[in-house]
């Protein structure tokens, strides 16, 4: 177990170090998120939505911005390994699950950084306020994890295919559809301060994340070694 953690930690640290030196993924994610946010804020603005619709619409817009930013950058970690021809040596050196865990952690942290920047901006620009901060943070955490675990798997698949940019969104979107709905409902409940609504959405998000984790552990080695 310690060995597994140390080895996945090495993959994560390697990705973090190369990302820190190039900032390819973070730039892709961050710029996309900020541009979309600016566009949303400019066209819709904070007070153009009727009071009744605000919790739902603001929650929906927030998650759509996060999802689209994720589509723009979360495949980088695998695509870069293929593009720079480093994937074969990684494949021969590391255990598949070690690679999976390291890359998943990297994507999760990347999303975390994105959310940490985006959400405060969103609150300022869109006048977005939540009643239950704890609930909102839980939804963000669980949602970020499930989003990362799903896209990590899809990224591993598309990295081995041609015309990858478009393929990543096309393949991810259907798998993320239920998650998107759960997260919007959970966030809306957090905005309205409904603990029951938050916990119902959280249960759905966590079980989806759990199922995806189990399936990834079984199938990632198959994809990676193909």
């Amino acid at each position, binding site marked *: 177990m310690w060995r597994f953690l140390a080895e996945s930690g090495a993959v994560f640290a390697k990705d973090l170090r190369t990302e820190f030196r190039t900032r390819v993924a973070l730039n892709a994610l961050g710029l996309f998120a900020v541009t979309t946010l600016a566009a949303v804020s400019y066209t819709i603005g904070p007070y153009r939505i009727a009071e009744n619709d605000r919790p739902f619409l603001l929650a929906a817009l927030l998650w759509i911005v996060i999802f689209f930013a994720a589509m723009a950058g979360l495949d980088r970690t695998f695509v870069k390994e293929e593009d720079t021809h480093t994937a074969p040596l990684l494949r021969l050196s590391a255990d598949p699950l070690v690679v999976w865990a390291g890359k998943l952690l990297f994507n999760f942290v990347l999303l975390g950084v994105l959310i940490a920047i985006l959400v405060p901006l969103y609150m300022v620009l869109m006048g977005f306020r939540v009643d239950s901060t704890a609930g909102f943070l839980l939804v963000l955490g669980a949602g970020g994890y499930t989003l990362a675990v799903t896209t990590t798997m899809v990224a591993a698949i598309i990295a081995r295919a041609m015309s990858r940019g478009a393929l990543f969104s096309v393949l991810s979107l259907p798998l993320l559809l*239920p998650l998107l709905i*759960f997260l919007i409902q959970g966030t809306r409940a957090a905005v309205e301060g409904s603990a029951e609504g938050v916990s119902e959405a959280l249960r*759905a998000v966590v079980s989806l994340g759990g199922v995806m984790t189990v*399936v990834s552990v079984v199938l990632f080695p198959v994809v990676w070694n193909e």
Partner: protein
Amino acid sequence: MSRPSPLGTVLRWGLFAWMSLVIWAAFFYAPAAAGFQGQSSRIVFFHVPTAWVATLAFLVSCIASIRYLRSRDPKEDIRASAASALGLTFAILATVTGSIFARIMWGSYWNWDPRETSITFLLLIYAAYFALRAAIADPERRATMSAVYAILAFVTVPFLVFVVPRIYWSLHPDTIINTQGRIKMDSRMFQVLMGSLFGFTGLFSWLYSLECRVEGIRRRRQHEVL
């Protein structure tokens, strides 16, 4: 090449007769359901079976995908892709018939109610599945990646079908077996619907076996080059 067996010929003519009977019965034997606009309810005899076949095809494709990953037998890959091709066709048919009905009943072609979302999900999955297949040149890799994707899609289905409707609202008429487990349908309508479901299932298995044979022949020809 084997000649068509006598049994196959009998079955095909039987299917033809059965489907003709179903079409006749749908218009002349079954009554129009109360509470629906005019004769619009008759579409149920075609809409429900196409949706059923789209779902069945998805199931067949997933089972073949799992079997492929276990056995690495190219025949299973042929089965998976043949079932998906048919599934895509029937999913389109179900979507079109459904939205015609929606236009008549609720005045708009599309409402994003959970069942429409489910069928859209199937459509998106099938589209993504074929986009992925088209993007991988290596036949073994193509088979593996698309099998993994089909399984990933499969595990998200329960969330979409069972969890999303609990969190979202629905306009869709109750499914045949409703929550009380009682059949709320005129008995003659029910007979025709069951007959149609049976006929469409037969139609699917016939088309499926044809598609598998065609794809098998195509691959054998490619192998002759080898």
